[in-house]
């Protein structure tokens, strides 16, 4: 469960990214976060992933106020999240397998479990055959699927994605979105920031619309 209560976020350069944003996303929900570039979608995701902290207000994730988390507890918190980026953020000098295994390596999972879970995650995204390939040897769509496999390999309860289909054609974007839907179907809370309204309409999940840092309509619930 993710809950924003009167959240404000101002960056050091003075930009007000979020102003009095409140919403609630239930466990196992699939929510689209929509809005123009710079509207504040990424700021919402950054606050959930604890890449940023709110200037005011509180962000609760699975009942825990992220604002009260000490710095030393942040890594363990992040291990319970899956994060996907538009630019994939893969380690280009490591094979697909190592990229996907990274969240398990940092969580001290046993090696034999790592092997099973990495192969299962690669199976889910259809990249089992490319596990020894370097990311640069893959297409953009395949790189995005590596990013998704990495995000889900540690079985997170929450999966957040920032413009995961931004670099993909519509067909590949649909495939990726279907992957996210499959994860939601097994109980994962999915939050996707996107400005691709065609996809949002096609998949028909709940939408939170942000404009100039404010939550405007959509199907927000507080």
């Amino acid at each position, binding site marked *: 469960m993710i809950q924003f209560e009167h959240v404000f976020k101002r960056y050091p350069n003075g930009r007000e990214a979020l102003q009095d944003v409140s919403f609630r996303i239930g466990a196992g929900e699939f929510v689209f976060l929509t809005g123009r570039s710079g509207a504040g979608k*990424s700021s919402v*995701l*950054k606050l959930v*992933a604890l*890449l940023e902290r709110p200037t005011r207000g509180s962000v609760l994730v699975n009942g825990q106020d992220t604002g009260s988390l000490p710095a*030393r507890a942040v*890594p*363990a*918190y*992040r*291990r*319970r*999240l899956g*994060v996907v*980026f538009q630019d994939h*953020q*893969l*380690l280009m000098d490591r094979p697909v397998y190592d990229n996907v295994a*990274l*969240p398990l*390596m*940092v*969580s*001290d*999972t*046993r*090696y034999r479990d790592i092997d099973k879970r990495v192969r299962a995650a690669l199976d889910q995204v259809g990249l089992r055959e490319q596990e020894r390939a370097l990311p640069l040897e893959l297409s953009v769509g395949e790189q995005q699927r590596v990013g998704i496999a*990495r995000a889900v390999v*540690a079985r997170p309860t929450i999966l957040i994605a*920032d413009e995961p289909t931004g670099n993909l054609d519509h067909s590949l974007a649909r495939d990726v979105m279907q992957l996210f839907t499959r994860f939601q179907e097994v109980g994962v809370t999915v939050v996707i920031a996107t400005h691709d309204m065609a996809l949002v309409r096609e998949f028909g999940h709940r939408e939170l619309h942000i404009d100039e840092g404010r939550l405007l309509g959509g199907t927000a619930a507080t």
Partner: protein
Amino acid sequence: MTSPLTYLARHLQALLGTLGYLLRRPLGTLLSIAVISLALTLPACLYLLVKNARVATGSVTEAIELTVYLKTDVSLERARQLADSARARREAGRVTLISAEEGLEEFRKYSGFGAALEALQGNPLPHVISLRPNSDRADPSSIAALQRYLSSWPETDIVQVDNEWVRRLSALLGLLERVFQVFAALLAAGVLAIIGNAIRLEISARRAEIEVTKLVGGSNAYVRRPFLYLGGLYGLLGAGLAALWLIAINAALEPWLLQLARLYGSSFNLLGLTPPELGVLLGGGALLGLVGAWIGAARHLSRIEPRQ
């Protein structure tokens, strides 16, 4: 809770990963290790210099002789008693009594004044006790104590000893030891700075990887681990190369020094590092590397946070 086996496996993985990283960039690795080795070689050389000088001067101090000229009216029996008293002293090594008759005979034999001595009424020479200090008590203060003891005998006329040069040499070695300590401290700080800077550059080069690792929940300890191994390996390999430099320097100087020692009639042998000293050099190098890496990593890793 991480199992001990998983924990050890992660460390082994970090170590092997770091070794692989060093092997993939041999030139950069070699340059870093060479700089560290030179910084470690200088104090190690000074240490060996002082150590060898101590041994060399130890054999020289064995050659120090104190000569006690007894008064001419002291009987031979009393001279023997005094020689026995001197032998009982811990500072005394070899004690030899040269009776007045033996002294005269020797003088007659070697001086070339044999005929002149025939003209003398009696033997003008006193009994003499010749004494060499114990090798482990040949320092200036022990020799001075021995000299005071010998001078305190009522039967003593003169005690002759020339230990001024020994005191000067000892003071010079003491100064060299201090110089070694100061250099060791300065160059240890230098090694810390070199390794800290190398780690800073590595962290900058691997910034993207660190960001991704932190993003997926890598703790500071996890992210820091390979850099600590990197620093430790730099220090260890630098110390290993320093040990090789020392062996090469020893091999280059040994024939020359042995020749010099032979000219002075000495059996001096150039000493290298003993296995425990080698252990201290390697362990110290690794420890310096580890500390330098820790300082560098602590400063720079905390500034890197994942960004989107």
